[in-house]
């Protein structure tokens, strides 16, 4: 049984009914029991080790809040979880096998929201969403299902009246909302969100909080980094600062240590 986390919305009427096929977007969608975890992760950017020996675990309905100052590796960790970066060491995997063994399966289970919104200036909001819903789906969705999913996702993010507006006319906040609508149009159990509240106004942040709560109630998982306050009840906090690596620790050998000190006078 999946633990039910506090929800902000009344549960859908058919919450107890058997779940529909995962390709159609429905409010009573439930994700299967999955577990995503990382062990002993080391991340190298350029010539700097951003963090070392980092571990985490995410089960159904759980959320992970990434904290830490700028440059502590929040974005790197999320890109690593998404599969954009490869860890220097350590293992990243699902309960049924490491990410490396089947990256396509990992991608089918993951949605990543980064700093950029991937909105084309000449495509309308609906066209953009339709495209992402189609390429992110594991099995080809039917035309009707796709239309319904896109319309519903736009409605949830309060974008319905902007459906036919080209991307270049959208404000930064509207582009971000369109990017978030992608998570609903192409459902996946694990959401990786790198500062999703950037450019959002208060009302939109509240919508986002509702979506996060609903996603967790469905058995979804979230890893999120933010500098604003986002209401994530019961989320575990991962402080990236605790995994920072002192370059001097890497050289146990006193001679190496001296060489490193001479090289980089702090």
């Amino acid at each position, binding site marked *: 049984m999946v633990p039910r986390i506090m929800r902000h919305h009344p549960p859908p009427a058919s919450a107890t009914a058997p779940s529909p096929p995962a390709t159609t977007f429905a409010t009573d969608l439930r994700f299967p029991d999955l577990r995503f975890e990382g062990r002993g992760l080391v991340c190298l950017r350029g010539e700097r080790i951003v963090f070392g020996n980092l571990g985490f675990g995410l089960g159904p309905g759980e959320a992970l809040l990434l904290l830490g100052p700028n440059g502590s590796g929040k974005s790197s960790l999320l890109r690593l979880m998404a599969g*954009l970066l490869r860890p220097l060491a350590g293992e990243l995997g699902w309960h049924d096998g490491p990410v490396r063994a089947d990256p396509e399966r990992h*991608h089918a289970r993951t949605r*990543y929201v980064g700093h950029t*919104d*991937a909105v084309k200036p*000449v*495509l309308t909001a609906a066209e953009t969403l339709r495209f992402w819903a189609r*390429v*992110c789906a594991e099995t*080809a969705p039917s035309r009707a299902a796709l239309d319904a999913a896109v319309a519903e996702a736009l409605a949830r993010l309060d974008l319905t009246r902007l459906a036919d507006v080209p991307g270049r006319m959208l404000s930064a906040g509207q582009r971000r909302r369109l990017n978030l609508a992608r998570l609903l149009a192409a459902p996946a159990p694990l959401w990786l969100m790198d500062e999703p509240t950037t450019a959002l106004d208060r009302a939109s942040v509240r919508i986002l909080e509702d979506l996060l709560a609903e996603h967790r109630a469905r058995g979804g998982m979230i890893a999120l980094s933010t500098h604003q306050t986002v209401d994530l009840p019961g989320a575990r906090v991962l402080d990236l600062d605790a995994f920072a690596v002192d370059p001097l620790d890497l050289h146990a050998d006193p001679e190496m240590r001296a060489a490193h000190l001479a090289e980089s006078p702090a």
Partner: protein
Amino acid sequence: MMTALLAVLRRDLRLALRQGADSLMVVAFFVITVTLFPFGVGPEQAVLERISSGVVWVTALLAALLSLDRLFQADYEDGSLDLLTLTPTPTLVLVVGKMVAHWLTTGLPLMVASPVLALLLHMRAEGYGVLLAAMALGTPSLSLIGGVGAALILGARRGGVLLSLLVLPLYVPILVFGVSAVEAAVMGLDATPQLMILGALLLGGLALCPWAAAAALKQAVA
């Protein structure tokens, strides 16, 4: 898998259609550069006829090169590339979709324009059919090889210059056999061997280039 490929193809065609300038510019460059030659070497029919196939091919290569740096750059800048590499479809497949879209929006217009420009250069009538066939086999290879170059230069400063240094040497075989096919036809010889080699280059490119470009893209988003 097919759905994702077609979705990428359709999106890129729609983007090209709405930002029509890019495609048009390539063909305009092709036409203008070819028309410069009669001014440069003089209007003598014999001279123009002699150089016609070479001029058409070299100019087509340069025109194709002109459009390449945008192939992945826009997606790279707005974050679409991150998301495209994170779809359940192997990146390789999506790369094929993008390369096909590139060919449809640049290679195909170049191919259609080439007989008209050949006429301008007094190419002998025997050459037109073979020129079209050679273009049909050669221009997809330009998109394939060029796509690898376009993926490799992502994130590099002055990528456009780097791209021509990377890609133009690899275009040489297509140029050599493309020109020699037309020359053979004009001289009344059989052009089949040259066309078959162009076909072989295309098949080889089809097998290797999407794979190499996908690897380069993964490197670019890391």
